[in-house]
């Protein structure tokens, strides 16, 4: 019972984040690829409610940054004019969820002012927009790779558990092999062998395939265990006695037993695979510039001066932490439910 509010928070956070990522074009105030070469490493734009004359504004407004003369990447607000934050403003064209063309953005300010909710990167690109678009890559990679892993795992686990004997033996030895693989190094190695000149879509799909196929072993072993115990249950034996086919038994009696484990595994694997994508991109083996992904965004932190000078460059790590904690909390909840049902 105590876990309930925590789960609620996790679910709300995850749903919000996923929606924002899915509707990145709408939520993001800027085109993630647009470079503002006059504003490298600009800090987050400040939202003001009180103007210079001390008047309170209900609608927040911003002062645009101007580079401080004779300095390196330092900015000050130019307070000649206030730019109120506007909602549903027209801006750069995009497609909602990759399908519906649109150019309306949730919020923005009148040109020439710009709003950088989480500052800008080395090329003056809006960090907030890049995190949202980067999330499309990173989170989608996590979810799709999980689907691959679980499908493979279920397939092999079921066959292995159901047919037993040498099929089981050989499948399980293979599982052990995959379990002891140092996956990070395998990923690095595999990526290094892939052709270099690939479009970002190809790289993305390859990345998912590689991450997904490496992780099937653990779910396969769990599923096999369940199948193994399920197929010897008396009602399964009875059903078989009444002439049920293997396919029927599998569909009707065995597979439903695995759902709980599958959901738990999914909730565990998604953050793990998001992290895998981030790791690969961090090391420069994922998507290349200018396509944003969380690992790619974080990789700028490899430079010492960025690490110590621009705190907003850590923002993708916060998004990553929220996703990981959210999913792990849900995995916990699934696990608890599974325990209480079976126990």
């Amino acid at each position: 019972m105590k876990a309930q509010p925590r789960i609620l928070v996790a679910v709300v956070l995850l749903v919000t984040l996923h929606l924002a990522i899915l509707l990145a074009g709408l939520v993001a105030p800027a085109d993630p690829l647009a470079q503002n070469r006059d504003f490298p490493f600009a800090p987050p734009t400040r939202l003001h409610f009180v103007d210079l004359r001390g008047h309170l504004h209900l609608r927040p407004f911003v002062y645009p940054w101007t580079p401080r003369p004779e300095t390196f990447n330092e900015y000050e607000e130019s307070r000649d004019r206030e730019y109120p934050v506007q909602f549903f403003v027209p801006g750069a064209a995009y497609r909602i969820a990759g399908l519906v063309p649109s150019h309306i953005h949730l919020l923005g300010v009148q040109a020439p002012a710009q709003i950088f909710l989480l500052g800008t990167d080395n090329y003056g690109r809006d960090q907030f927009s890049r995190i949202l678009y980067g999330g499309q890559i990173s989170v989608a990679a996590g979810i799709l790779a999980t689907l691959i892993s679980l499908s493979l795992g279920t397939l092999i686990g079921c066959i292995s558990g159901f047919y037993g004997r040498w099929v089981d033996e050989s499948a399980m030895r293979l599982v052990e092999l995959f379990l002891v693989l140092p996956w990070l190094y395998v990923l690095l190695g595999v990526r290094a062998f892939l052709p270099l000149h690939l479009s970002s879509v190809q790289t993305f799909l390859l990345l998912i395939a590689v991450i997904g196929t490496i992780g099937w072993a653990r779910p396969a072993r769990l599923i096999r265990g369940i199948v193994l115990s399920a197929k010897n249950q008396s009602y399964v034996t009875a059903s078989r006695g009444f002439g049920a086919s293997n396919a029927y038994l599998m569909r009707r009696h065995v597979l439903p037993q695995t759902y709980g484990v599958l959901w738990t595994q999914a909730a565990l694997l998604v953050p793990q695979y998001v992290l895998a994508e981030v790791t690969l991109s961090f090391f420069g083996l994922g998507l290349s510039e200018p396509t944003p992904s969380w690992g790619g965004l974080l990789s700028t932190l490899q430079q010492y001066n960025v690490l110590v000078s621009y705190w907003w460059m850590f923002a993708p790590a916060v998004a990553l932490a929220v996703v990981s904690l959210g999913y792990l909390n849900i995995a916990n909840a699934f696990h608890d439910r599974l325990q209480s049902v079976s126990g």
Partner: protein
Amino acid sequence: MHRMGCLATLLLAGAACFAFSAPQALQRGEDLFTTDNPVGRYGGSLVVAQRSEPKTLNPVTAADAPSREVIGRLTADLIHINRASQQTEPALAKSWTMSKDGRQFTVKLRHGLRFSDGSAFDAEDVLFSFKVYLDEKVHSPQRDLLIVGGKPIEVQKVDPYTVRFTLGQPYAAAERIFDGLAMMPRHLVEKAYTEDKFPQVWTLTTTPSEIAGMGPFRLKEYVPGQKLVLERNPYYWKIDTSKNRLPYLDELVFLFVGNEDAQTIRFQAGDTDIISRFSAENYALLSKAASSRGTALIDLGPSLEYNFLVFNLNDLSSKNLGKIAAKQAWFQDLKFRLAVSSAIDREGIVKLVYAGRGAPLWGNVSPSNKFWVDQALPHPPRSLDKARELLKSAGFSWRNDGRLLDRQGQAVEFSILASSSNAQRSKMATIIQDDLSQLGMDVHVVPLEFRALVDRVFQTYDYEASIMGLGGGDADPNPEMNVWLSNGGTHLWHLGETKPATDWEGQIDQLMQKQLVELKYKERKHLYDQVQEIIAANVPYVFIATPNILVGAKKKIGNFKPAILDPNTLWNVEQLYFLPGSPP
């Protein structure tokens, strides 16, 4: 107690005497070089960081920068290029004369000089050194420099202190060849040479006593993975105006510090005394608290290096690279290259990549190379309109969604290789990608490990375009021969040409050969200006920018006079000293 204290002091004093090699008193008959620097004081150990360990200490075979950096402190040459004035000055040679036809060079050596192990230096050592450099079996990277007009330089001993060099043809700035050619001690390495084991001498594990040079320092200790310690050469041949034998420093320590960021941190922490070759971002970081830390940072202005975008114009008929060969139709079109050049935001690159500490380039000669830069070279500003016009007149058109199409209706799409270890070139690639996307070109940036990149550009030709950097060595045009002669080894856009592929490449060949044998500076400058203009008009390389040389040092270091030529900070290491009032 008291006696113990005395004893300890004595022991310490004794240890100090043994720990450092004291400079030898001046001898009669020594032809010494008197430097004009302010007089310093003896003592102290200077610590600098190096990106990687030297591979060897053999001056004849060393090819990598870390090795050369260390070897340069251990050895000396006959004639040296003064890094501050960029002009030659006598070193181990006291003077030299050139015959009227420009083919004979007579060099008078200084009398009474000794190697760092105390043995005498004379013409025999010079003869031996050149024999080794010229020996094909030794594979010295400097050998090419010593082949003039197709013939190796001939070296003759006239008397124990006079050597005559005969060149195959007159050679402009011939005395600059001698810079960096270390004179070797015949008595230590001749045996290995006669046994064909020369390339194996003077490795990092060689006992320090078996290594001797004419440089300001000699090897003291090598700790693998950590540091290399040099100590004063007590017989060094330079003195200051007060007749103190140089160097002032007791020791010079090279710490091996993996990368630039780590070097920045070590300098920030005070572990190293001097820092060089670091990015403008780290420069900004270090300048924040520079004065309170007692350090000074200096921006020396644009370096001699040039960074550029090169398109693959190699002959691919013998290679199985059909896809790239198809794209070469674009790259070979001068208007296409001009359009790319016109679209690149050089100012933006200087701003974002070098944080403003760099200079945009439209030619191969950096604006800081005052003797050779062609001031008349045009600097067209960035213009996307002009780029579009050029493309249009070359038969390119645009699809409705803005994508650029060639005559055949093919969408223009190519990739740019950039070294993944060079953050600055990767950033350039990202900016250029954005610039070219505004022309409707679909450009991919492919970060590649440096050696893999070099392999593709030099060997397999399996690339479409690449960002590279060259130059940065000497200010003279001669080291550039390799880049611009159509059969040159660094003629990157089209390697292995047996004859010039285009008329303008033929013109460059002629002009470069002419300047090589022209002895008058004014004439040479005129010829080299024409080369620069032809290059700028035909853009075999799309020149981008050059970074400023940035250095930093603790304020307590005296006579610190960094230069834009390599080695930027240690070129006058024998004159560096710790100012009074600072603990050495």
